[in-house]
């Protein structure tokens, strides 16, 4: 970096830099600020989505009470949200264990579908194989535009599943799709803050479902 003609403007970006203390202070300040931002985004999202969460949670509880199962899916970090969601419902911290499956877990199925029919169909083909009309489809996508998510929601809607989407932009294809019954949108420019808020939304949905089922509602 020292060969850059403008390096005198940025003496801190210097290959001769040795003292870590200033950077450690900056890093900690940055972390503290982002922790606040993350919690602000999550709090604001939960407040803004409270009505949709209540409705979606009640609809999910009714499906579970009727023997429905939850299928979760997403790509990349959102795939791990799908996996974590399945674990949350199947091995809950409290309340009733509920049937949930992540469609990203079976690598044989994923690679077979991606190789033979195309990556855009990896979730919709599994919906075709597994889903019954009383089931629930939950999809995570920070962009809200992933083609394989949209295909899965279209297939799920066609088969009368309850469809719930979590995404990051109001104008995303997922947020405006007729195939998504409840789309919970996080307003943030940061993929990371969106993912963190998706977790908070899903935990809240899970808690609402548990409250309904413990009161015998939705059955």
């Amino acid at each position, binding site marked *: *970096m020292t060969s850059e003609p403008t390096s005198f403007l940025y003496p*801190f*970006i*210097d*290959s*001769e*830099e*040795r003292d*870590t203390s200033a*950077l*450690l*202070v*900056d*890093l*900690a*300040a*940055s*972390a*503290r600020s*982002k*922790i*606040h931002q*993350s*919690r602000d985004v*999550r*709090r604001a999202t*939960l407040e803004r989505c409270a009505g949709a969460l209540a409705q979606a949670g009640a609809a999910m509880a009714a499906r579970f009470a009727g023997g429905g199962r939850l299928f979760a899916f997403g790509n*990349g*970090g959102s*795939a*791990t*949200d799908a*996996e*974590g*969601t399945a*674990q*949350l419902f199947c091995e809950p*911290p*409290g309340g009733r264990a509920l049937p949930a499956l992540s469609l990203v877990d079976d690598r044989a199925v994923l690679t077979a579908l991606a190789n033979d029919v195309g990556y855009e169909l990896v979730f919709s083909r599994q919906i075709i194989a597994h889903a019954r009309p009383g089931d629930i489809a939950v999809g995570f996508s920070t962009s809200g535009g992933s083609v394989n998510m949209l295909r899965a929601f279209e297939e799920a809607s066609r088969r009368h599943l309850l469809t719930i989407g979590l995404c990051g932009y109001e104008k995303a294809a997922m947020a405006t799709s007729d195939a998504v019954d409840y789309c919970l949108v996080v307003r943030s420019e940061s*993929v*990371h803050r969106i*993912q*963190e*808020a*998706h*977790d*908070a939304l*899903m*935990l*809240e949905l*899970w*808690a609402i479902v548990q409250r309904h089922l413990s009161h015998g509602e939705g059955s």
Partner: protein
Amino acid sequence: MLPGETEECGPAEDLAAAAMTLARRFAAGATLWCVAPPWPSHSRHVAVEFVHPVIVGKRALPAISIDGARARESVRLLARPGDVLLAVSTADDACTLDLLERAEAWGLTRVWIGAGPRPLGGRAEHVVWLEGADPRLATRSGDVVLLYHLLWELTHVVFEHPGLLRAEPDCTEEVCITCSDEGRVAEVRHALGGGMVEVIVEGRLETIDATLVEPVTSGDLVLVHAGVALTALGDGSA
């Protein structure tokens, strides 16, 4: 308050120090081994953050998720001394505790992220913890994910400071385990007969005298000082 939220702003200083170490280890050629035995989705999530960054232009870094059930054998075979083990778990997870202890013998730097009661000291070089949070909720509320999102982000900030990537941090602990007379954790490889055993300690094979702790078998952990095994730490069945 959000579910699992704590009053504290979070472990910002611990994240900063962990990111500094992690960037330095990566710069030296390390691979990041990710495990999360109670919550497997977190080990995959943290690995994909490093391998396929969400911000275009950030370098891809070698991070690999290992499933909890096979983690001990896989990491022992795959990791090289100087690599980093990142564990995401509760403080009392037996599989994680076993891995962290062995990782010391394998010569790995350990970063431990989690929630709930804070672990006792000495199990990892860097502990990044959400104390006071209910770990069963924090793991799904976004708080645990936030910690490793920030670890990734801060690690890349350190990469913008090439001068700081070279040196290892000075030993600032009051009692530094590598500089003191304390014993080192060793993992038994083979009994050689006559009370001597071959062990791996700090990532290197050494022959030590195990007469004080015999019988020992492959996989046992012992505390070694000056070429002598002083204490058996466990039978590896944890």
